[in-house]
């Protein structure tokens, strides 16, 4: 039997990539186990051109815009992941087969791709406030340093503006902000006119800090405003976890083993044994390490820990932000020509702080609509498609989409557990019960109405509200909450799984509260801290 490796990191998503980088920096030899599906079909077909030029001139555009099998054309009721474009669809590959989840009330979005959910991450890097960090069970002082470390590593563009306390917090070394497109620019001007009244109502609008370079870095180029962000990672301007993992692999600092679905672990004398499934052959594989760092997202990590440490009746909590997206119209921009150059990512964030204490904060990310094309929206008009084309084409330049997240303080009504499933290669499936109480639903609706009113006062009028139901936010956490005392299915403050010596969790599983701000940046900062502890134990 070979000697155990120093450390195994499970998962190549945002938390896995950051944890692996920190471990390598500390001199630890890391093996990364991952399923790691990639796009091997479209990436090379996408030219380094802007969206409008491609639409006008490229004869092969249908391949990556709608897909060789038209897999990017989703018809039917609004479905999870329907905005995922063909070059990104490997993000969802094999999820139903390999990591099934059965629930009437919870429809999450998971990934087994190389880079995990980070493949489609919107790049928003909002710092949690100290109040939010404390509620989540995280140490504000340590996290402040970790935010800076991760920010320096990935590169963040942003600005210290009206909303800085909600966005960039204490971050330094920001690259200049991106140029705003006309929809965001118009909204910001509306905000500046009504700023005092909006602030009295608890609203503040500011630039979204993005993991997107506006200055060149070694190996990565500044953003070129091609508006192809939903299709390609050209110039590596946008930070993606696979970029970091590729760099570690190129430097021989990390050994990557793909095609491995990690199922369970068990601690032995001086090492951890990790059982995995080879996803190609179905064969069982065993890996051994002195330390194990789980970074498979809150749901994936819960599966592994429940199989390894839970009994049949074990249940764990689950946090997920209530989410709705609200298409709005800016009448002043209707009937405008296609915009180029342009940025596809969210450029503004709107916050509502209920009492100014930075704890109960809801957040909306704002997006203009262009490169996802007309075919995704015409089907929603209750008229024939030929006339819908005329109408939507005219309206499209005035669309502004608001994705509204609300914080989740947790509840006993939101739980996860493992159930048997003979059709699953692991013999089980995750099951979930997720419900908001009547009071919570009323509070969510009240807040939605406030956001709609705030947008109206800035010149953007809500057309409808789409509630995809629990799970639609793609923000999951809290399955193994931090606990100061030793207790089963929980983490200590260093991210170590209680009841183990050598097993750490570097994703958002430990969070005891899920703020509305996108959690990715905080998960990465926490992963850095957990990896430092794991390195210390190696």
């Amino acid at each position, binding site marked *: 039997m070979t000697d155990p490796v120093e450390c195994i990191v499970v998962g190549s998503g945002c938390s896995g990539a950051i944890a692996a980088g920190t471990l390598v920096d500390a001199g630890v030899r890391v093996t990364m186990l991952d399923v790691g599906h990639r796009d091997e079909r479209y990436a090379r077909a996408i030219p380094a051109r802007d969206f409008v030029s491609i639409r006008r001139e490229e004869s092969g555009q249908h391949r990556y815009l709608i897909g060789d099998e038209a897999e990017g054309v989703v018809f039917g009721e609004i479905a999870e992941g329907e905005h995922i474009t063909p070059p990104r669809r490997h993000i969802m590959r094999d999820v139903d087969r390999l990591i099934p989840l059965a629930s009437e009330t919870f429809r999450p979005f998971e990934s087994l791709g190389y880079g995990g959910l980070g493949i489609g991450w919107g790049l928003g890097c909002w710092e949690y406030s100290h109040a939010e960090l404390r509620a989540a069970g995280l140490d504000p002082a340590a996290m402040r340093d970790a935010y800076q470390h991760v920010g320096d590593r990935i590169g963040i563009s942003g600005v210290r503006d009206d909303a800085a306390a909600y966005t960039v917090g204490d971050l330094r070394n920001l690259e200049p902000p991106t140029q705003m497109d006309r929809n965001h620019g118009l909204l910001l001007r509306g905000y500046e006119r009504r700023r005092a009244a909006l602030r009295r109502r608890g609203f503040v609008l500011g630039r979204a800090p993005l993991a997107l370079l506006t200055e060149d870095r070694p190996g990565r180029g500044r953003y070129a405003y091609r508006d192809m962000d939903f299709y390609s990672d050209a110039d590596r301007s946008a930070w993606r976890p696979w970029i970091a993992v590729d760099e570690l692999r190129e430097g021989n600092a990390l050994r990557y083993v793909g095609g491995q679905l990690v199922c369970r672990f068990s601690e032995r004398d001086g090492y951890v044994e990790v059982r995995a499934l080879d996803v190609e052959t179905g064969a069982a594989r065993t890996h051994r390490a002195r330390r194990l760092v789980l970074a498979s997202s809150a749901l994936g990590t819960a599966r592994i820990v429940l199989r390894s440490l839970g009994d049949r009746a074990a249940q764990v909590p689950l946090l997920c932000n209530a989410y709705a997206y609200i298409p709005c119209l800016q009448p002043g921009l209707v009937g405008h020509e296609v915009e180029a150059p342009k940025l596809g990512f969210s450029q503004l964030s709107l916050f509502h702080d209920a009492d100014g204490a930075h704890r109960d904060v809801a957040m909306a990310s704002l997006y203009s609509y262009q490169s996802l094309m007309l075919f995704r929206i015409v*089907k929603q008009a209750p008229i*024939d498609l030929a*006339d819908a084309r*005329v109408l939507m084409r*005219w309206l499209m330049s005035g669309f502004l989409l608001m994705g509204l997240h609300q914080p989740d303080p947790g509840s006993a009504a939101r739980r996860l557990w493992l159930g048997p499933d003979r059709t699953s290669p692991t013999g089980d499936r995750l099951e979930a019960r997720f419900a908001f109480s009547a009071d919570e639903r009323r509070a969510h609706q009240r807040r939605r109405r406030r956001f709609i009113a705030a947008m109206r006062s800035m010149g953007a009028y809500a057309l409808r509200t789409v509630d995809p139901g629990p799970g639609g936010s793609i923000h999951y956490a809290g399955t193994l909450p931090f606990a100061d005392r030793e207790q089963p299915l929980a983490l200590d403050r260093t991210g170590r799984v209680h009841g183990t010596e050598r097993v750490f969790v570097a994703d958002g599983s430990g969070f005891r509260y899920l703020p509305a701000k996108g959690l990715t940046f905080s998960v990465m900062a926490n992963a850095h801290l957990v990896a430092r502890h794991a390195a210390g134990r190696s």
Partner: protein
Amino acid sequence: MSALALEAARFGRYLLDGVEPAPAAVARYVDLIEHDARPVTAADASLLRFARTRPWSIGPIDAALALSAPYAEVRRRLHLMFAILESTPEHHDRFLPERRGTRYLGVVLAAGGRAVARAAIGIPLVRFLRQ
């Protein structure tokens, strides 16, 4: 011309307001539908046949289904053709937004009126064809 190619050409012309679809778009539609193993119900097949052979009926059938069965097979195929045309460079000028003055509101209102008229014709037609 095969039945599917005829369907593609007529759906394309309808979606492009009378403009002939590019041959590559027609070929792409035929290829995708031929490789689509999805079963078609008898009622949907009858609607498809009628729409294919009587191009004037495509708009009314589409408009009626948009209200009563927005995800029916005819609409799914029209939507697929829409996406194919939108990603065909020859037709970019029918899909990319253009600068429009206030007078263009008249065109939009006319399209709205046409949609209502199509639905008024299509609702009894679809009801009859689905019997």
